[in-house]
């Protein structure tokens, strides 16, 4: 047996992944278990959950691999501090503190915490972790791999050639030239939270005109060969600034938008900020498109795998899929740093002679839903538990306008809820979008909610469904005219939708039932979590969720948990 645990953490979105004998046994994000959104600590709970899933003890692990090189990262921080002297005191004080306090000793801490010998713990490069997570989980034997994020140790964008069981690094761009840092700076400029608010920029972009591209091109210059450069004086990438940009960017674009002010997209000023979002998004798409072409040419391949935080930009992925070919692109669903744990585990397993894992066809790699004890807990909380209605009954209730949480099987790995920890509603009524937002999500009005559809029924509603992207919601697709009419709650302002195609499992059964009574086997599917919270993981979380949000119920395995004591529609 070859068992390798991959670990990412201490920066953002900590996670663990377990690979045993060439099979991805489990992959879990720490935030789901600790309930701290984007939890950046060492993922002890996630590690434990992975080991439990694989029914092995830490002492049986052949190796534990951390997803980046702590000392190389320290080198970047030190050199950046020196180069920015005497304006780098903040970085010197805070950056070194976090390095000295825990980051440098991470391998020793893992050895201590897992009670295994230090010799069985090592680290690999950040972008190698990303690349491995993308290529080895993909259905391709031969592909170019592009990893794009804020920054790893020094790398920000790396091209790889993947062939069978090997990954070869071809070329890369390094800090501070980074699409991730560019997009993060725009995110902060628009008043959103960096490392989390990037989706908001993407949603907002649909409402703007890309009329500031020329101005932004001064900050991010695209070269003819597919590379790009960040003009450093617009950005503050010292890591100590919450903003990530300098006053020069405000000189270029006008004053930043104050955080926290409610958005009004009928207001000229806010529309001008939407124009900035649209321009930044367009520039990012051009940069990603060019980098993808660069990668394909350099690797002499016609398939492409993507990972790294920037590959979470579904709209940019759509553009790449259009250029490269819809069935030739794979984006690893946990493309951000959480996915680094998966890549690290696979690298370790392959180096120990294990087989390459079979292609990833599902992101459901977390703990199973377990409703044992839920009835007693619900009783103590004054909630109601009954058997779950059958699919037909539930479909009727959803189409009547009810909103249900839906927890089935194993929890998803990655930021998207894909029918295992989802919040579901009717897509046929625009009012449901508002209802979901009012009851639970409290999102800005410009953020879209996504549709899930039966795989074989996409045609009348969506113009395409890239086979390795839509199962994971890692791209957007154009909605047809019919869909714009019939599915108003899930088609975005620009006529696209972040589609999920579903081919099997309980969620497919429910969609089928919806298709029997409604115009299409489609549901509105958003993640099951309150505003600012991680996605619900366990039955206990579900009870807390129902306590806090007046939804019509949450299906937890075979049970229906709801607020009222009256049983409705249960069979």
């Amino acid at each position, binding site marked *: 047996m070859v068992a390798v645990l991959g670990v990412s953490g201490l920066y953002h979105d900590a996670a663990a992944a377990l690979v045993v004998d060439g099979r991805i046994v489990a992959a879990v994000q720490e935030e789901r278990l600790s*309930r701290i959104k984007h939890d950046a600590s060492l993922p002890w709970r996630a590690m434990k959950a992975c080991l439990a899933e694989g029914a092995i003890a830490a002492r049986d692990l052949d190796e534990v691999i951390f997803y980046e090189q702590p000392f190389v990262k320290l080198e970047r921080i030190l050199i950046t501090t*020196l180069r920015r*002297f005497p304006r780098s*005191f903040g970085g010197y004080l805070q950056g*070194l503190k976090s390095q000295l306090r825990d980051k440098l000793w991470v391998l020793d801490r893992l050895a201590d915490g897992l009670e295994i010998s230090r010799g069985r713990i090592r680290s690999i490069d950040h972008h190698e972790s990303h690349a491995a997570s993308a290529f080895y989980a993909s259905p391709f034997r031969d592909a170019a791999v592009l990893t794009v994020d804020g920054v790893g140790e*020094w790398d920000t964008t790396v091209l790889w050639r993947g062939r069978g069981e090997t990954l070869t690094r071809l070329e890369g761009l390094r800090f501070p030239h980074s699409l991730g840092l560019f997009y993060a700076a725009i995110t902060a400029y628009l008043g959103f939270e960096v490392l989390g608010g990037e989706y908001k920029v993407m949603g907002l972009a649909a409402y703007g005109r890309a009329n500031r591209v020329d101005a932004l091109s001064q900050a991010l210059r695209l070269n003819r060969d597919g590379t790009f450069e960040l003009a450093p004086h617009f950005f503050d990438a010292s890591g100590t600034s919450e903003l990530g940009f300098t006053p020069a960017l405000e000189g270029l674009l006008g004053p930043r938008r*104050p955080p*926290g002010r409610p958005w009004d997209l009928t207001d000229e000023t806010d529309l001008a900020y939407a124009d900035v979002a649209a321009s930044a998004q367009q520039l990012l798409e051009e940069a990603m498109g060019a980098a993808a072409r660069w990668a394909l040419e350099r690797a002499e391949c016609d398939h492409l795998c993507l990972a790294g935080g920037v590959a979470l930009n579904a709209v940019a992925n759509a553009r790449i899929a259009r250029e490269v070919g819809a069935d030739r692109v794979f984006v690893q669903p946990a493309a951000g740093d959480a996915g680094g744990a998966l890549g690290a585990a696979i690298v370790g397993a392959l180096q120990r002679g294990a087989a390459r894992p079979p292609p990833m066809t599902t992101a459901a790699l977390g703990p199973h839903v377990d409703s044992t004890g839920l009835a007693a807990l619900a009783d103590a909380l004054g909630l109601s538990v009954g058997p779950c209605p059958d699919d037909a009954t539930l479909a009727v209730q959803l189409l009547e306008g009810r909103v249900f949480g839906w927890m089935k099987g194993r929890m998803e790995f990655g930021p998207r809820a894909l029918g295992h920890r989802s919040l579901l509603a009717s897509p046929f009524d625009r009012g449901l979008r508002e209802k979901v937002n009012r009851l639970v999500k409290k999102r800005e009005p410009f953020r879209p909610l996504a549709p899930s559809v039966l795989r074989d029924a996409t045609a009348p509603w969506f113009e395409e469904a890239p086979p390795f992207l839509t199962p994971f919601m890692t791209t957007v697709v154009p909605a047809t005219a019919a869909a714009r009419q019939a599915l108003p709650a899930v088609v975005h302002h620009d006529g696209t939708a972040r589609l999920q195609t579903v081919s099997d499992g309980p969620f497919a059964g429910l969609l089928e039932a919806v298709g029997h009574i409604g115009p299409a086997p489609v549901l509105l599917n958003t993640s099951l979590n309150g505003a600012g919270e991680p996605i619900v993981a366990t039955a206990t979380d579900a009870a807390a969720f129902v*306590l806090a949000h007046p939804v019509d119920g949450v299906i937890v395995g075979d049970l229906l948990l709801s607020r009222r004591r009256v049983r409705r529609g249960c069979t």
Partner: protein
Amino acid sequence: MLSLHLALVALWAPIVARSPRVAGRLLRGFARAELGSVYTLRWAAVATPSVERRASYLRHADDEARHARLFDTRAAALDGRHEPLRADAEDLFEQLGEARFLAFLERAEGRGRREFAHYARAFERAGDTDTARIFRAIMVDEERHETYAAALLDLTPDAAPARRHALRWDVWRGARRMGTRLADAVYALCMALTYPLLAPGAWWARRRAFPPER
């Protein structure tokens, strides 16, 4: 220790209540503490073997989450700053065990309630009734938390020793927190003193290619 703390709060509260900027900072600090309690309680809910106590901790966490939102929203209204709310959390249940955890809850909730009473009065006197009302509303919940924690603790055989331990532990925790603050200050001072020594390194780093060649 507790009364000294409250005496300081009594002195400090009228000063805070007069400045929206300082009040905003104070309320944001409370919001962070409330959010930290949410995590602590959610972990306790997972760890406890009793369904009744799990339900109590979940309900309690739900209240604290609401408090965090109330404080955070009011802080932004007072000082106009909007910052992402983040908090550190301690796994007190694991550190203390359940009886001592309950004893600590009882103590902390009581302290919070008394402290908030001072602030509520101070904000009322300063004419800021909106902020005062938030403190008053939250105090009602804190009293309920104190009562339920005490009641659950009294059902255990170790109530009296747990309360004594919680008192000692609370004092020790306060001292440790002061120690951390002191260590932070010493660290900042050392770093400030050594920062100028980076000058030759800065000269060297600027002459090298950036990013450095591999």
